[in-house]
């Protein structure tokens, strides 16, 4: 697991606010309902910060953000240099 993935996991845990929950980079977050749709925008902003990439609108579906591993794979696939 990369340092950025670890940071994203920490961010997600902070957002989910369940004390005894443990997640790893392959834990389903979106499809399992742990993260709601209103939080997707916050996840994307954090992903942009951690990858220093811009994730263009329309290139990402909720299922692309389902796990932390998928988030970073998505950023690598569709991310563009930040302006």
């Amino acid at each position, binding site marked *: 697991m990369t340092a950025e993935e670890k940071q994203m996991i920490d961010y997600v845990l902070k957002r989910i606010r369940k004390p005894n929950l443990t997640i790893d980079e392959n834990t389903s977050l979106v499809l399992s309902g742990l993260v709601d749709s209103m939080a997707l*925008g916050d996840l994307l902003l954090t992903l942009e910060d951690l990858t220093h990439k811009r994730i263009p609108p329309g290139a990402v579906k909720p299922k692309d953000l389902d796990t932390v591993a998928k988030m970073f794979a998505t950023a690598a696939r569709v991310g563009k240099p930040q302006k």
Partner: protein
Amino acid sequence: MRAVTRSAPFHLLEWHVLRYHNLVEALEASPGDRPFLTFWVNEDDQETVTFGEFRHRARRQARVLREHGVQAGDRVIIIMPPAIAAMAVFAGAMMLGALPAFLAYPNDRVEPSKYRSGLAGVTANLKAKLVVIDEAFPDELLGHVSLGNETGLLRVQDGRGAAGDEELPRLNVATESVAFIQHSAGTTGLQKGVALTHAAVLRQLEHLSRTLQIDGVIDRIYSWLPLYHDMGLIACFMLPMVYHLPVVMQSPLDWVMYPETMLQVITEHRCTLGWLPNFAFQFVPRRTRPSRRTQYDLSSLRALVNCSEPVRSSSMQEFYDAFAPIGLKRGVLQSSYAMAENVFAVTQSDLSQKASPAFVCADGREFRSAHRVVPVEEGCPGSISFASSGRLLPNHQLRIVSDAGTTLDSGHVGEILIKSDCLFDGYYNRPDLTAKAIVDGWYHTGDLGFCLNDELYVVGRKKDLIIVGGENIYPQDVEDIVATNPAIHDGRVVAMGRYNPDLGTEEIVVVAEVECEENLTNAEEIEREVRGRIAAGLGVTAGMIFLKPPKWIVKSTAGKAARSTTLEKLRREHPELDIESQETA
């Protein structure tokens, strides 16, 4: 007995769009080379169709529908993402004289069995001829689509193709015939389909365009709204289709994932008009980085209308504070009271004032005990504030009535009844529900509100009202107070009434999610603090308070707390409560 009326003799009004007999005629009369729909995905990916190209696509879809047996009067259910293709199918169905109805597109997390029963319920009620889905409709759900013998299933392509008009016979659609059927949300089988005639829709659009001072040259509409909702369907599809205005739209999902793109679209396309539910006025500023706002310019906007939820001044102020530095003008943020049963708007705030909607601060105790508004100074202890939803549209009448049906005077709170020349004919195939809703020509909205200086203020839903010892308590007020406790998750609170036979009146029941599960170890203290706040703020004592872990409260498809479903869940977990709330009254 007084009714608020805004009407003028019909001959005094210039009925611009009423020269059309039906909505299809209005589309056929549009200038072919004028841009109509732009579907915005990002700055490099957007598609614009002119009115001519849209007509062409609609005709193609009409031909496909006809090949599948659709005829005049048949119901066609459309379950497609809110985009140009879905709109072309809708218009194509109308070209055949069929009655289209949009339903919500399933999201990634929909439960197949729930989806199946919901869709089966709606198709059975409509006796639909065809259910139209898109190519991307999830295969895993397809096996769960259960349709009656009379209902077919059709996957359509996006309707693009070589130029050239598909010939369709000219259909004489009567002005008073039903044009389409609107459903309020989701695909629950219990939904009521609102049947709207061409005449009602055309009249509503005429009123709306006059009130909004629609300018066919400069106006351009921005929308991320779903098409099954009246804001999306009427304000952002029918209005521009009939008045030949351009619309720039993006998917609701893209908007919720990238709220900042709303600023980008408005800036790029110099949009002038838009409609948003109240929560969006908080959602967008809270999810756009201040450092990135400066690249946008909202000075083109002349009206952004807060609609479909009770209007909150604080939400509009938050939006204004965030975006005034990038050109948002004070008078742009406006309000409206609208419902599918009246096609769309009943009231609209006055754009000519170049100011925010009217606002009143009222004595809280008088409001709750005497159910009337006694204005007080802003910030006065114990006061509550209300934002106006504006004044009646032309040819509309309104009454505020008590439970006994007596018409109340200005400043008194009661149920809102409306009568207009664009009221719906009834709920499709549900004469029982129609008879309850429309009595002597007055539609009983189920909403509570009051009139003051000819402005309508909407305060909540009648069925949600909690009455404690004769005092009217609005669940939203309780929820707002509870959410001020930092241990409680803002927006995840539901308040309701429960009849307490020992007291002979209702008591307030609160269900609230804590911010994090650890807070539950401190539940007693949180509960005590919340009780204190309710007592201090409303002057009444709360009955039971349930603190629940995160994600406990059931949310609607729009992301808001689903009051009735949450209540059902509470009943299941706490059967000992034997709750008899207003929900079941």
